[in-house]
């Protein structure tokens, strides 16, 4: 910590702090600027500008204040309304899809791949997750809620199950969406061994042809989800389970045992002429294909549909309705009512700063006045005020503020008042001791001796002397006030919990913190940055204005 060593260096000479006082007084009395080479303000600026952290904090606070003032103009979205209605077309494209079209084609028994001529049967396994609809050339799936489901696509006997996930993030590990199985050859003769080509479509659009790569993806998925035994499609007919390379387990289901036989090791042998139906189940997804066997099949007038082929299987849907993750469109994501958190944080700056500034200034005004009175007059009034402030200081700030809220009821104005109440005794105490030391200065004595009235002495001669202490504490207390304000509104004592206020935002995020994190993260970071800036500035001011003043 560089600051530390600088502090140490400065505290060696206690003079500057004292020099500030008479300097101020000179100016008050209208001393000519030119005759006086020493300017306390310049001295302060010089010392302050040496402190890097405090300077950074100072500019940070300046930016925060500018943001607070301009917030309603610069917010990208209306902070109080669902963002869905505020999207332009461009935004929609950027966001990722909540609707996909998966291209769909027929593989015919003559080996050709053609456009489908009939609309397939499309059925969504869970309509609360995905709605699916088919047309001749594609299957359209629309996200409804976060989750995972299977969409069955079928034409006669040929069926494919597609796994479709709806997530809140576009950046998700790809999962296996569809298993595409095609007979390796157009026609098989009886007794011939049939090889099936298996392709895995991943949700990021990649197509894997290598079985070991498919196995790796399946293994990753299982690790991620635990042992999930939901399977798209029940296995029917004769079941043969194979294990290949130790990992890739394919389950075959044979529906026509006369036409095809499936060996224990997974080899499929054509037994008799006809059209066989085989179900291939892999990684929870099953696919039913038809395999024509023998010359009669060859001689058929019209080729039959043996399997489906898919294109554009980026079956990764994004739930756009709430809790969108941070993206280039929503820097901080959206909250449980799909409101833009970035906009809310910006607008929340206003209320947070208002609570910080107004409450501390109120408390400081009252505390300073009482402190000046106590310090200047002393005696009975002093002991009464000191006693009262000691009692208040015995209570922790949060509890005192909560007690005030308990009496006044929840609400922002009451929070300001509550924070002001516990600020009063702090200022009373420090201003009192500062005033007591200034009171004995010769210039105060001089003013008294020429019959200047008490209140003039207090505000014209003593107050400027205590000003540096007041400014330092004012800055430091603002940070504390912001934290206490945030705690109170987090606890639901701020009245309107839907307001774009950082503490209230954290309160609202609390109920969903199990699933999503960004609504908790960003408002909290905003609090930390702001409070840190005020604390660092306070430290810097303390070192620059009064090196003796240390905790």
């Amino acid at each position, binding site marked *: 910590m560089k600051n530390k060593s600088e502090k140490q260096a400065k505290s060696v000479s206690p003079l500057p702090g004292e020099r500030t006082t008479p300097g101020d007084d000179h100016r008050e009395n209208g001393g000519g600027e030119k005759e006086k080479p020493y300017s306390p303000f310049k001295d302060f600026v010089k010392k302050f500008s040496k402190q890097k952290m405090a300077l950074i904090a100072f500019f940070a606070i300046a930016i925060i204040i500018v943001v607070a003032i301009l917030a309603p103009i610069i917010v990208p979205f209306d902070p109080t309304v669902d963002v869905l209605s505020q999207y332009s077309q461009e935004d929609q494209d950027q966001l990722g899809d909540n609707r996909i079209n998966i291209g769909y084609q027929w593989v015919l028994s003559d080996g050709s791949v053609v456009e489908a001529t009939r609309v397939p049967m499309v059925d969504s396994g869970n309509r609360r997750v995905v709605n699916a609809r088919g047309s001749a050339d594609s299957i359209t799936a629309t996200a409804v809620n976060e989750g995972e489901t299977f969409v069955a696509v079928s034409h006669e006997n040929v069926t494919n199950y597609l796994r479709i996930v709806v997530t809140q993030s576009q950046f998700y590990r790809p999962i296996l969406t569809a298993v595409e199985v095609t007979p390796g050859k157009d026609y098989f003769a009886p007794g011939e061994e049939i090889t099936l080509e298996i392709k895995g479509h991943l949700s990021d659009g990649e197509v894997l042809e290598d079985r070991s790569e498919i196995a790796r993806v399946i293994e990753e998925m299982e690790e991620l989800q635990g042992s999930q035994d939901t399977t798209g499609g029940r296995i029917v007919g004769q079941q043969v389970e194979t294990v290949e390379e130790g990992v890739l387990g394919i389950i075959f289901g044979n529906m026509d045992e006369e036409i095809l036989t499936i060996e224990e090791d997974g080899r499929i042998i054509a037994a008799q002429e006809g059209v066989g139906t085989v179900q291939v189940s892999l990684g929870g997804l099953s696919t039913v294909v038809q395999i024509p066997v023998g010359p009669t099949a060859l001689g058929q007038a019209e080729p039959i549909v043996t399997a489906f082929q898919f294109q554009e299987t980026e079956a990764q849907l994004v739930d756009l309705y709430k809790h969108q993750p941070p993206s280039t469109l929503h820097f901080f994501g959206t909250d449980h009512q799909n409101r833009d958190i970035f906009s809310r944080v910006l607008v929340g700056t206003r209320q947070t700063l208002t609570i910080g500034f107004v409450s501390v200034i109120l408390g400081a005004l009252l505390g300073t006045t009482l402190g000046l009175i106590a310090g200047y007059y002393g005696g009975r009034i002093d002991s009464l005020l000191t006693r009262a402030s000691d009692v208040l200081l015995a*209570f922790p700030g949060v509890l005192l503020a909560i007690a005030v809220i308990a*009496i006044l009821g929840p609400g922002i104005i009451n929070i300001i008042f509550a924070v002001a109440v516990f600020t009063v005794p702090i200022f009373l105490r420090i201003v009192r001791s500062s005033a007591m030391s200034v009171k004995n200065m010769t210039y105060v004595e001089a003013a008294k001796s020429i019959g200047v009235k008490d209140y003039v002495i207090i505000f014209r001669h003593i107050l400027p002397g205590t000003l540096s202490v007041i400014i330092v504490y004012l800055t430091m207390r603002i940070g504390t006030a912001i934290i206490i304000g945030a705690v109170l509104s*987090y606890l639901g004592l701020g009245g309107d919990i839907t307001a774009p206020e950082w503490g209230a935002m954290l309160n609202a995020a609390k109920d969903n*913190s199990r699933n999503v994190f960004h609504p908790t993260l960003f408002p909290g970071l905003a609090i930390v940055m702001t409070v840190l800036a005020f604390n660092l500035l306070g430290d810097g001011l303390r070192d620059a204005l009064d090196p003796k003043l240390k905790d």
Partner: protein
Amino acid sequence: MATYIVRRLLQMIPILLIVSILAFLFVHLTPGDPIRIMYGIEIDQDTYQQLREREGFNDPLPVQYVRYMGNVVRGDFGVSYRTRANVSSEIGRRFINTFVLASVSMIWATLAGLVVGIISAVKRNSLLDRVVMTLSVASISIPSFWLGLLLMQVFAVRLGWLPTSGIGGIRHLIMPAFVLGATVAAIVARFTRSSLLETLGEDYIRTARAKGQIRRNVIFKHALRNALIPVVTMTGLQFGFLIGGAIAIETVFSWPGLGSYLIDGIINRDYPVVQALIMLFSLQFLGVNLLVDLTYAYLNPQIRYS
């Protein structure tokens, strides 16, 4: 000493009385009719009047106050408007929870703060020292309830190592106690460091070194003893602040203690609960402050209260 304690105890009485009057008045000054809160809004006028009479709300305020305080002295804080449960027994049940949480937090925070503070002072300007000082500045800028939410997300939701909330075994205690104690630990560390550094600059330390004492002895036998006196005071005072902080932390972790009881009471306008807890907390802080003063006097032979 005994007279001092008695005098301090007597001084507490007027403060407690003022607190009790304020707490009592707020029932009658805030909007919201206790009868309506207790029995619902839809009761008719006749029943309403009967109930007011039966619950004693028609008596003059001073009479009600005296009756209430009479009950309080006998340990009866009335019944909750919402649940009709006895407030005293509920407080008794929850007090244990808050006490356990606050004590565990305080113990780890003090021990960690002392150790880290001493090491920081002895190895001044070392890496550890810098890290500790940076953390202690950061710790006063981070709202502890938010730190709680962060930890909950990482260790409970993502990693699943600890339960998210509620009360149960030691595992339930780890996160709330850590969060609650973190700020105190940072403050104690910082204070210990500066106090020890100041003491190490004293003449008698130089004398001890000059007469050939080894450094470890000087630090632990000469410096630490004196350096720790203000630390004890400060640490004691932190206990009160820790209980204040516990209010938010209990709410974050759904810890069934007095703090969450108070917040629920305020939100539900459950006045007997709020009234009782405000008085109880006040008593607690005055008690802690007295204890701190007494410990201070015991440790520092220069101070003798008469």
